[in-house]
């Protein structure tokens, strides 16, 4: 029998009325990993995470949380930070963390001790007994995050955890995620901010228009976009014609040439070839792959595909009507 899988979604679809929010989604979160769940607004990320937790039921497909359908037993091993932040405004920070920890099965004394420990660690010790209404927005958000991980969950599901946090608190949250990961927790978080995913994630799942458009590690993601170098040459020199015979594709792009790199080619290979071919080089810039570019490219493709699908469906419907 294989290792227990914190989350596995197979062929999951969800409709809201006539709108399909999630389309045949397959992905899994291996134990001990940090997975970035990326996608633009309305991609279906929150709906997918809510289905993962059993808050919403999928209309099609199968969701497994620790190899069983989500239920209170499996959910006790999960900590969840919802996208829509909310706390009981009349309760104190300590009371809220204790309450949610106890709902997850901790004893009263353990929950209180854990709340104190977490509040101290996040610099909120002095506000432990302050009502939520007395806390700043950032502090309240920290309290909610602490509520999600107070019971030391094996699996953390964080929906847009960085939104609304200032850079200092974003860094603090990144540190906390790394710390939880070191403790042994598996983590999935959704975000728009690619830099967080680049710094934290071993695996990326990207969604657009309800579809999964990518699943893999960061290197796979960079490969998906294709690498290149930018080479500037003196005016009049045709770099494309010069490099084509040695296996490089170059094309003019503004005041320089963009030289595409095949998987077996490096930027040093391109520079060496240009020098050997006698190109009068004025500048050389390796184009670093960024997750943001991959994201924009994949999302644009998905949106274009979606538009194509819609047009095709409309055409089919019209043809059917005409017939």
């Amino acid at each position, binding site marked *: 029998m294989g290792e227990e899988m914190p989350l596995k979604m197979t062929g999951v679809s969800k409709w809201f009325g006539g709108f399909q929010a999630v389309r045949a989604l397959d992905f899994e979160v291996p134990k001990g990993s940090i997975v970035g769940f990326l996608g633009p607004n309305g991609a279906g990320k929150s709906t997918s995470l809510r289905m993962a937790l059993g808050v919403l039921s999928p209309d099609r497909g199968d969701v497994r949380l620790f190899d069983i359908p989500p239920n209170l037993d499996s959910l006790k091993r999960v900590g*969840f930070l919802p996208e829509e932040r909310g706390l009981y405004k009349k309760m104190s920070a300590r009371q809220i963390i204790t309450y949610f920890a106890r709902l997850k099965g901790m004893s009263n004394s353990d929950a209180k001790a854990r709340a104190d420990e977490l509040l101290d660690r996040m610099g909120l010790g002095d506000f432990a007994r302050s009502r939520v209404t007395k806390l700043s927005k950032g502090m309240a958000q920290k309290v909610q995050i602490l509520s999600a991980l107070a019971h030391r969950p094996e699996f953390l599901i964080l929906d847009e955890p960085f939104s609304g946090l200032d850079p200092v608190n974003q860094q603090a949250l990144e540190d906390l995620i790394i710390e939880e990961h070191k403790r042994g927790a598996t983590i999935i978080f959704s975000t728009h901010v690619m830099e967080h995913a680049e710094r934290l994630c071993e695996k990326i799942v990207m969604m657009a228009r309800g579809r999964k458009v990518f699943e893999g590690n960061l290197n796979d993601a960079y490969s998906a976009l294709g690498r290149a170098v930018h080479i500037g040459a003196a005016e009049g020199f045709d770099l494309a014609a010069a490099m084509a015979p040695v296996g490089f594709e170059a094309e003019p792009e503004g005041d320089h040439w963009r030289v595409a790199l095949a998987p077996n080619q490096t930027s040093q290979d391109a520079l060496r070839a240009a020098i050997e071919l006698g190109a009068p080089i004025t500048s050389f810039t390796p184009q670093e792959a960024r997750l943001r570019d991959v994201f924009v490219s994949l999302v644009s493709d998905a949106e274009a595909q979606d538009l194509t699908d819609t047009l095709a469906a409309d055409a089919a419907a019209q043809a059917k009507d005409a017939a």
Partner: protein
Amino acid sequence: MIRSTYLVTRRDYLGYVSAWGFWLGLLFTPVILGVFILAPTFAQNAQPTRYFTVLEQGSAFSEALRAEIIESDSVMARAALDPMATIEGRDSEAITKFDEAIESGASISEAFEIAGGSPSVLPRQDYVEVDPPVSTSDALAPFLAGEDMISTPDGPQPLFAAFVVNDGSGEIEYWSENLQARSLMGAARRAESDLQLDRALAEVNVNRDLLTRARAARRDVTQQRLRTGADADVGTEVTQADQAPFVVSIMMAFSLWFLIFSVVNYLLMGTIEERSNKIFDSLLTSVKLPHLLAGKLLAVLLLSFTLVGFWSTGSGLITWFARDSIPADIADFLGAVGTAAGDPALFIPAIISFILGYLMYGSLFLALGSLCDTIQEAQTLMTPLIVTLMAPLAMLVFAIQDAESALIQIMAWVPVFTPFLLILRMPTEPPLWEVFAQLGLMAVTTFAILYMATRVYRAGAVHGAGVNDVMSFFGKFIPGKKSAS
């Protein structure tokens, strides 16, 4: 289930009782109720004495009016002397003494003291007649307008009203700038009736004393009831113990209504707070929806027990400490009420009705709250519920007159009214099958409403359904109306 429900119940309950609004309601509700109950008495006592005069050739009408006002003041004095005897329509020793003193020519205040009443509780006289300040009706105008004062035993006072008996036609005119207070005019009409009756009797040579003697000689009609078995020893006359269950049932029905009406708002407000604060997702990944709802309903049920416990203990303590100053017949009646309240035939259906009624209305308010982000939104959906809750209150009026009225019997079968009306019917000892059938129907309806409310709550909490979705849903049933999307 028990642990998560307990935790939700505990959090919600402590949240409610730690709010200052709860303690304000707890402490001030009895005060406000007391003010409502005593308001008519306060208003009566606060009303200053009003002065009137009569312009008449002769004195026949004014004497009749004076006698009518003395009788009216006597009624108030009797009620102050012995409230229980007045309510029950019987004469007590104090009232008999008072009447004898009046008969022998004593003033009301003198008769009141002779009968053992304290002058401090004697109601103030509403109207006092004064001599006319002028001799013509035209000259009365500045007095009625308040420009001139009349002299009274209490010093110069405004003239409230004047009666002018027309010499020629004999028509009686009532003059006053206060168009609403008509009790003096009513007294004048009764006085005129008596006067004309006296005149008619005189024409046939019948003395008015004959009527007085006839009234004095009238026989009392006593209320009897059938008793069998061990109760037969008590006799057949209806006692306070027989009346007490009806009083208790009305009190219980009203208390039940008041309690439900008071506490369901906590459910509504609590759920609106959770929805507007977006806590549902966090909660629903920690506790099952039915357990969450059970916890919420239990918390407010405990809250209602806290209110009842506090008020009952408070009133019990007040009664205990004031026991020596409570008149014996009132103490007897309170004892009969206490005994009736402890009758299992009354309190068991009352408790079942309260729990089912609370669950029925509580779950509806919970579902309503889950659809609303603000109290303003909730108000648009609350009207039908409020109207439904107000209907049983109106039926209490019928129950006070006749608990066996056909209306109460029929409406008790409507499950949303059963919690209140079944209690009202219990003292009439309805057939046992009817009691069980109504309780059963109420239970089935309660569970159906709970089921529906859970679904609505899920739609609101999980799917974010709101007021517009409700409007859209009902819009489908209106012919020719397109539902909003």
